[in-house]
């Protein structure tokens, strides 16, 4: 296999043009941290962006940072953390779940678009990508968006690039919004609720004026194995419902008290602060109870997005039917499901239940032979699928970029 390590956007253009001329599809990688997500690709050439890794500019007062796509996410997080800033959408670190060593690159973070618990309040990767330079499947560099937050000039192609898994264009440089880190965080803990009651409690909290920035539920079964970051919280072996409040110290503390009163019908909430709270939300963001190195490490893992109030019914039934485990985030709107190993990863049950409530499911972790037989990404209605394919072809008509990653049978 050829690995082509590009040095600049011009190199990327040349590689893509050669790929077009040779009818030789390319796999696009940064650090390869998420290579295990999606279908096997029809290619034997790799376009490696890891050397395209500079910080082009960082202007903390403008709340923006411009980076080359191969910039290591870990380094960038340290850089903005030093200015007390963050990516508000809490990009997930997939390494523990997938059992890979690397945290990945900025390009991978955007291309995968996997947002963490604060998605409900701050939006996802798509909401924080302000502009991009990319090379299309025509072999041409183009730009879209800009370096300012407020911009409606032309189609917002950034939205398409975020979450496109490298199938539309090769991003070479991106401008992202950064946000101030909250001064303080408080997390309320409710114990012993079943999924349905927890879903109700989260709905009440998210429907309150207290600006909840995280609402998750770990059923009792999530504690059957020891998990990093849960510390003593897991010790009691009871289901845990957690609600996060962030902001200036006085406000976070005040809102935590008000929310505790509001949630009194669901039990007496206890409180954790700052470092302990932050460790807990890191555990949830990265789905550590299902980590590759843990007790459920060999189980396939689904990421199901649904209307938040439907979460508990969907998750409870799915867990019961398959004997699997679920964790709820986004107030019930995101369900992580680790299901016992099976040839089809229980895809029919997962998809039927997701479809029934207008949700969708992605098979984030599964062995390669399972991914050969199961659609990793949620099949769409025929009209939307056809439009999506036309959109894809408008960027990459010869399908030279990550061909076959998004759908089975696309491998030609």
């Amino acid at each position, binding site marked *: 296999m050829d690995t082509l*390590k590009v040095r600049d956007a011009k190199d990327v253009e040349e590689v893509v043009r050669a790929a077009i001329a*040779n009818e030789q599809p390319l796999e696009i990688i940064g650090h390869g941290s998420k290579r295990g997500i999606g279908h096997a690709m029809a290619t034997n050439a790799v376009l490696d962006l890891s050397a395209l890794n500079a910080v082009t500019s960082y*202007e903390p007062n403008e709340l923006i940072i411009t980076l080359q796509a191969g910039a290591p996410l870990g380094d960038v997080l340290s850089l903005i953390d030093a200015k007390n800033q963050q990516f508000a959408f809490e990009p997930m670190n997939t390494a523990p779940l997938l059992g890979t060593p690397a945290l990945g690159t900025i390009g991978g973070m955007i291309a995968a678009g996997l947002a963490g618990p604060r998605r409900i309040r701050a939006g996802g990767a798509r909401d924080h990508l302000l502009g991009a330079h990319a090379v299309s499947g025509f072999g041409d560099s183009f730009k879209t968006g800009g370096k300012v937050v*407020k911009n409606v000039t*032309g189609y917002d*192609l950034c939205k398409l690039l975020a979450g496109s898994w490298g199938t539309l264009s090769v991003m070479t440089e991106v401008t992202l919004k950064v946000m101030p880190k909250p001064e303080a965080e408080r997390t309320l803990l409710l114990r012993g609720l079943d999924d349905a009651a927890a879903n109700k409690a989260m709905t009440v909290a998210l429907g309150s004026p207290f600006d909840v920035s995280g609402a998750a539920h770990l059923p009792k079964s999530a504690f059957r194995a020891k998990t990093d970051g849960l510390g003593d919280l897991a010790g009691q072996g009871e289901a845990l419902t957690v609600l996060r409040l962030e902001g200036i110290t006085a406000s976070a503390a005040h809102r935590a008290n008000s929310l505790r009163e509001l949630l009194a019908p669901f039990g007496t909430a206890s409180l954790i602060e700052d470092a302990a709270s932050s460790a807990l939300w890191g555990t949830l963001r990265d789905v550590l109870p299902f980590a590759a190195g843990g007790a459920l490490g060999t189980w396939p893992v689904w990421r199901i997005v649904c209307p938040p109030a439907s979460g508990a019914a969907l998750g409870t039934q799915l867990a019961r039917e398959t004997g699997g485990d679920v964790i709820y985030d986004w107030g019930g709107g995101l369900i992580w499901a680790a299901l016992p190993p099976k040839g089809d990863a229980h895809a029919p049950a997962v998809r039927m239940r997701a479809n029934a409530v207008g949700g969708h499911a992605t098979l984030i972790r599964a062995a390669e032979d399972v991914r050969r037989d199961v659609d990793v990404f949620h099949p769409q209605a025929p009209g939307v699928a056809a439009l*999506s394919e*036309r959109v894809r072809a408008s960027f990459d008509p010869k399908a030279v970029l990550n061909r076959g990653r998004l759908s089975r049978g696309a491998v030609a």
Partner: protein
Amino acid sequence: MAIMMPASDQAVLARRAEIVAALRAIVPGEGVIDTPAEMRAYESDGLTAYRQPPMVVVLPDTTEQVSLILKYCAGQGIKVVPRGSGTSLSGGALPLEDGVLLGLGKFKRIREIDFDNRIVVTEPGVTNLAISQAVAHAGFYYAPDPSSQIACSIGGNVAENSGGVHCLKYGMTTNNVLGCEIVLMSGEILRIGGKGCENPGYDLMGVITGSEGLLGVITEITVRILQKPETARALMVGFAEVEAAGECVARIIGAGIIPGGMEMMDKPAIHAAEAFVHAGYPLDVEALLIIELDGPKIEVDELITRVETIARGCGSVTLQISNSEAERNLFWAGRKAAFPAVGRISPDYLCMDGTIPRGALPKALARIRELGEKYQLGCANVFHAGDGNLHPLILYDANKPGEIERAEAFGADILRACVEFGGVLTGEHGVGIEKRDLMPDMFSEIDLNQQQRLKCAFDSQGLLNPGKVFPTLHRCAELGRMHVHAGKLAFPDLPRF
């Protein structure tokens, strides 16, 4: 008219009677308007300098009718211009002489309010404000608040990706919309997204939002709603120099404070507004900031103190803090009335809408001043300072020969300066026809071709709202052609592993 629209299709115009009859067969009764007198209401939108009566107006009230109209027009090669409430400031709904004007004004129903999932499903003709009003009893509201919110439709908001004073903290339309029902030019009806936080596959909702009616006709929208903040207070701070006001904005953001709104006005705008609404604005300052903090009372009180300290540190010369809703509203009254206030001091004005990096604010103001001298026209400036979105209001008199041309040239130079300073041509009003011919100042031909290829994926005949956004129209077949490189290229000489 300085802007050239696509040449009218004479063959279509010759068949007007037949087309009207065909549309009447789809939308019976008063839903088809074809008399010049009745069509006059539709000949312009908020960009009133440009007027063009459409060939015919059709006002469907069901998705099926929209689908049949588009299918018919696609089959007959007839252009279609969609329209919501017609409040666009960039001419997005300007009719075409040979086009059907498709008004969505009859789609006025809110279909579902779901407090548990914190969403509203609405038809596109519902006004922005009506959504907030429909959920206010439960303490909710819809966050984006364009200044036309009493009149503008939510469908138009999606088409334009509308912003507003509070989008600094709460985002633009695109950050607050979850799904839609859209009818493609072919007549095909698609559902994109829904009540979940995220949609599967490519983010089609994201690219439909802000597409200015060129990709499809939206017939239903799902928006997310938020709980209203407990309280809001505002500071009104005057500065002797624009630079100091700009520095104050930067330091507030730098301190990690994201106000609900942060507005700036320059001296001409302050004077015009004060003369109109008597809000008690200081008249001897060069710049006035209105900074609003919202949230729980304890938080707002604390942040007000922090912002006050920052403002004094930047050399504020006047500083008032609202202690009641009445006072807060008074602070805002002048800013909210800035456009009509300027309308009182000048027979006509052009409202521009560029965005620059916040730090370039003083530089941009200096440039606007220079340009004003060059073009011999006055300019009052109001800004969404928190996000660098400028609204220079260029004063002119349409009755004086040559003034509108000078005003337009002045405006174009301001927008070019925005791009030069690292910003963009439009922050929230859209490209439409107004900024269409400036697109090459911001985008290369390759950039624009990629955007137009996307258009082809939705509308391969280019019949939906042509003449807007893109200065040059290309046929889809031409855009889809690949570069043919001589022979078979080898992979270039790169490090291999």
